[in-house]
């Protein structure tokens, strides 16, 4: 019996007259890769923004590790161990890859202001440890050539991986990936599916992924949730969802 890591209960949110998400319930088990698919405007990214507390829920609640997280501030979500990436990447553009990854360790930094001013041994030890953790992530995602490069000068595909790397530096329990393959070429997408496997199996991180590329979804995910117009259509194994009549109708029309 696997353990339930995250549970969404009757999530609902409207923007003006648009019901972006309606009574959506799903749960994510510890250790799985859970994909959310659906046509444009189905509410996929809205679900992510709800989980990361960018939007307030109108109704419903979200349970993470047994605690209700519906009322936390966005920065507290990170402290709980939920990391995310964005569809169009939100990185610190004028900093190096290394600095972007180091800031991912922010929640783990425990040194005090005065010690930091004096650069005491404890501070030094922590910086070294952080650097080592960051290097592990760099090795995992093959980012070595870009370590000292400024984000603004990097190609889009690399930036997307840097964002995944930054999320991993937070050592999250749950990783939210918003369209990780958008803007990647076919080889990069292929690499991405292997990395997803590594992240999930070797690091033991549970992943919720919003994704359009059905090949990637079918290959990488354990279960899939199909959304349309803010409503859940179906949830199940990738092969079931791909042939589900409601899903086909939502994508292809009647």
């Amino acid at each position, binding site marked *: 019996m696997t353990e339930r890591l995250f549970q969404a209960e009757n999530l609902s949110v409207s923007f003006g007259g648009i019901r972006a998400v309606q009574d959506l319930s799903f749960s994510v088990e510890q250790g799985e890769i859970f994909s959310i698919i659906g046509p444009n405007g189905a509410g996929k990214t809205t679900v992510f923004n709800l989980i990361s507390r960018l939007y307030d829920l109108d109704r419903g609640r979200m349970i993470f590790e047994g605690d209700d997280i519906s009322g936390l501030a966005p920065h507290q979500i990170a402290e709980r161990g939920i990391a995310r990436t964005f569809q169009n990447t939100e990185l610190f553009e004028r900093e190096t890859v290394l600095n972007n990854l180091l800031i991912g360790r922010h929640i783990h930094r425990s040194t005090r202001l005065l010690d930091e001013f004096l650069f005491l041994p404890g501070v030094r030890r922590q910086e070294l440890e952080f650097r080592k953790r960051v290097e592990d992530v760099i090795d995992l995602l093959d980012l070595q050539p870009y370590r000292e490069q400024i984000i603004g000068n990097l190609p889009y595909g690399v930036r997307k991986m840097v964002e995944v790397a*930054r999320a991993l530096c937070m050592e999250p329990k749950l990783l939210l990936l918003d369209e990780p393959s958008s803007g990647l070429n076919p080889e990069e997408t292929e690499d991405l599916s292997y990395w997803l496997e590594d992240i999930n199996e070797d690091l033991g991180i549970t992943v919720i992924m919003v994704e359009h590329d059905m090949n990637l979804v079918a290959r990488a995910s354990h279960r899939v949730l199909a959304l349309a117009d803010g409503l859940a259509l179906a949830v199940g194994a990738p092969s079931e969802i791909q042939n589900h009549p409601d899903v086909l109708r939502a994508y292809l029309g009647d």
Partner: protein
Amino acid sequence: MEILQLLISGISQGCVYGMIALGFVLIYKATEMVNFAQGDLMMFGAFISFTFLNLLGWPFIPGVLATLGLMAALGVLIERVLLRPMIGEPPFAVLMLTIGLGFMLRALAGAIWGNKPRALATPFSGGVIRFGELVIGYENLAIVAGTAILCGLIFLFFRYTRLGIAMQAASQNQLAAFYVGIPVKRIFALVWGLSAIIAATAGILVAPVSLIDPLMGSVGIKAFAAAIVGGFGSLPGALLGGLIVGIAEQFAGLYLPAGFADTSAYLILLLMLFVRPEGIFATLQRKKV
């Protein structure tokens, strides 16, 4: 010798502009708002230090620390009460708000301490050092030394501390900062606190040279010009811009007809906008197409 003498007073005046400009830039970088009350915060800091040091007769160090503490609290309070409700409002509204805040601070200072100019007595008031014909006032030395120490501390703060790095992160990308676990709103309040501390430091250092009165914050406009010359958004640029304006002002006062001294800051600003509109240390990058 005359030139050297001018240079020294220019540098010390420039340090004051530079410190106020630092406050402008800090708040702008972090919150994308321009705080036109920065000069008035300096004035208020000067008055508070005057209260502790001269009216209450506290010793210098405790008096200064109390001033900085109180000003930091004022800065945080201003952000919390006035600026935070303005999140999402047009920048122009925020700008008007800070101009209004400046008026309020001036009126408040006038009501509390009166409109008569006051002199702040400090341990470094009055004395001079002579090198041959060169005369340097202790106050001027204190300004330069104070600015250097302050800048050193700010550098260490942003380079090494968790809070300083979090501030940089919040100023570069608020959304990303949220998702690595940085409480962005609290950081903004602290940025205001830090800017108020810097303003108060400038106020304490400049008060023995120029007198304290509710209108002394008007140098803030020159400091604003200095910040733009330095490339709004760059901390070293703000300091350098301040020095350029301060030095130019002294030389204009001696070698150019009357009136040029006070306008030289704006002439330099105008010139800069023609030649290199992005400022000396450009931080705004052109969008690549």
